[in-house]
């Protein structure tokens, strides 16, 4: 057990934990933030994505000690006043089916738009390719990313 400190959703948090615990389980079991999902546990699907210093990272195999002093944003902390533009676009386009993969999809899209505010279809394909959705919502995700990009630009 060690003390681990990082910024979570814009607030400093310190907790006593096994530093090897994957961030996913710290978020879900110790901090009660269940918006970050477990699906493959092997870094393959992207359902457990969070933002670490603005980059999309998979939390299921990432020991919590590696985020010490970093900024972690989960789906719960994404919107500052109300929903983020990407979340709004998701609602508008009715993207989610079951919804289980969607926090991962949204955070990957947010990270993409941070770097590339006007991505082409091919760039979206590349950035989102490893984020899996068993329900098959890809077509709507693409549309929603374009919509959010437009929203952010205007």
């Amino acid at each position: 057990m060690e003390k681990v400190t990082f910024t979570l959703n814009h607030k400093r948090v310190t907790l006593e934990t096994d530093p090897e615990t994957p961030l996913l389980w710290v978020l879900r079991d110790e901090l009660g933030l269940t918006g970050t999902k477990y699906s493959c546990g092997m870094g393959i699907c992207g359902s457990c994505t969070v933002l670490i210093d603005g980059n999309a990272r998979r939390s299921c195999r990432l020991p919590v000690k590696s985020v010490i002093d970093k900024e972690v944003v989960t789906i719960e902390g994404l919107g500052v006043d109300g929903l983020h533009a990407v979340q709004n676009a998701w609602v508008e386009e009715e993207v989610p089916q079951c919804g289980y993969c969607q926090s991962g999809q949204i955070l990957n899209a947010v990270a993409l738009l941070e770097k590339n505010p006007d991505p082409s279809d091919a760039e979206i394909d590349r950035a989102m390719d490893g984020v899996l959705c068993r329900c098959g919502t890809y077509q709507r995700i693409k549309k929603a990313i374009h919509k959010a990009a437009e929203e952010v630009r205007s």
Partner: protein
Amino acid sequence: MTSQSNTLNRRDFIKLSTGSTAALVLGLSWSCDGNRVAKASNATFSPNAYLEIGSDDTVRIVMPRSEMGQKIYTSLPMILAEELEADWTKVKVIQGDLNEVFGSQSTGGSASIRTQYDILRKAGATAKTMLIQAAAASWQVPVEKCYASEGVVYHKDSKRKSAYGKLVGQAAKLPVPTEVTLKDPRKFKIIGKAYKSLDGRSKVDGSLKYGYDFHLPGMLTAVISRIPRYGSELEGMDDSAALTVPGVLKVVKVSSGVAVIAKNSYAALEGRKKLELTWSPGPHASLNSSQISADLNQALDRTDAIIRDDGDVEQARRSATKTVDLTFEVPYLDHAPQEPNNCTAHFHDGICEIWAPSQNPGNGFNAAKRITGLNDHEIIIHTLRMGGGFGRRLQADYVADAVEVAQHSDSPVKVIRTRDEDIKNGFYRPASVHRASAGVDQNGAVTFWQHQISGPAAGWHGMITGGATEHAYAIPNQKISYSMSDLPVPIGAWRSVANTQTAFVNECLLDEIAIKSDQDPVELRRRLLKDHPRRLGVLNLAAEKANWGKKLPDGHAAGVAVHKSFQSYVAIVAEVSQEKSGKIRVEKITAAIDVGTVINPDGVRSQVEGGVIMALTAALYGEITIEKGAVKQSNFHNYPLLKFSETPVIETHIVKSMEKPTGAGEPPVPPTPPALLNAICALTGERITRLPFS
């Protein structure tokens, strides 16, 4: 008003329902409960089990089925709200727990809309009728002079009005009518509109809780080290190392393996890694997929039963000018919902309380009963939200896990599965092989059709034959038969069940005969379906929207398939191209669907998109294989899903119809792979008969 107790048994319900629409009366008889009405008259009005209106105008609608991504959380309330003339902004949805009043609560067979439509319309209309009666009585005007709209009752002449919330006390005292008038569908205001999901926001802000997220104070988490091969048994166990892992509390044997109960998920997972278990080889240690395939192929030579026998196939085969003989084969498939299976159970106060993300809480209830020996009233099961289901969560194995593990604890226990456990312990779409043939005469008329199916069916041939006899092609001589095998690999309903196999066979066989006899695949289908307007309707719509017959870009080709399942009709036109590497690219899917009256067109579109992707995944990659008596695949690297960059444009066209509504969850799946394979054949000349093909 009679006084019925809350514990009406099924026989009483049936008695009460005699002579009237059973399901609605089931609901209404519940409302005849004296206590419920007395309580209701204070602040709420609940004329039946499906809704409750509060004095603050809130309309709480109970959804009696389970939500897993098919959006019935919105479409079922739309039906009730339509007849209630509700203010949609005041609607709140409550997930209905297992309750006899709702009849079967199994969510499968694309049946939610189909079976609940009349019930929910009547439930809404009943409440509206009573609210209007209450208003008319208080204004002392004739009922006929009043009407309701958007949660308010109006008196036509005096322009008086009253919101539903103000009328609940009065309405609750009225007798519940048994006969009510339903709206003329041409006056629908909600049904048929693309309404946004009522839970849409909760799916993008992380607030929606799925089974995996469920939490109770003091709850423990457990994972199971599972039986590694079919039929193998535990021979030895050393849990000493596991018990030293901080947070691990207990190690217990259960029927599916050895469970590690811990304070949290990570501790349970770490503890499981340290278990030392020895297992017997068991009776199936040499079972493998090639043996299964060989056995199923051999069983093709045996006929257990003939399920369609028209005319004389042998005679027609002899006189045919051209014949096609093909053998098709498909593997086992896992559902792999994005959320792995899980369930929470707690034994307290002499009861077993269960929280199950389940498509079939009744099945979980029965499992709990079998395990605990408790009485019906000592088991409570709540339905939680699911991250996908696709048929997997019709089973109760994960409920049984939670009940068995929780028996060893005073605290609530959530039993979670990791992805590998979930993939390796599935109830798979059966593997099957099919010998199929067809022939034409000199005029190009299809004269015979023969289809022999062989697969594991767990005693119910529908698991492998469903849809085989329902192709509707006007062919005079037909023989369809099967042979069933027993295999230790568990099987279950996978999104559209056997239609995945039979549509593949039917639609590829027909395509092949069209090619062999030099006929256009759409034209041939039109001729053979001329007496089936709804099949023709989707076929023509898809062909038109896909510009069938028009020239495609160089290196592109199109294929078509049409199939009816679960009383809905879908035609697919697939357009493909080939990369230099030889890899096939699915460019576009044009889907036409006829689900009768459409409740939420956007919901239908999203189910078509999802069904198409799941079907493409199956055709390209889906394969569960058996090695040494166990499933070989373990995660998305060896059981891959279609990716973003492989997703075609999917265009959905919905047939306008006043027919009874039917479901959209499964029907888009069956025709998609054959349309794709027919397109590939048109492009490359290669007839693919084994899936997956990439």
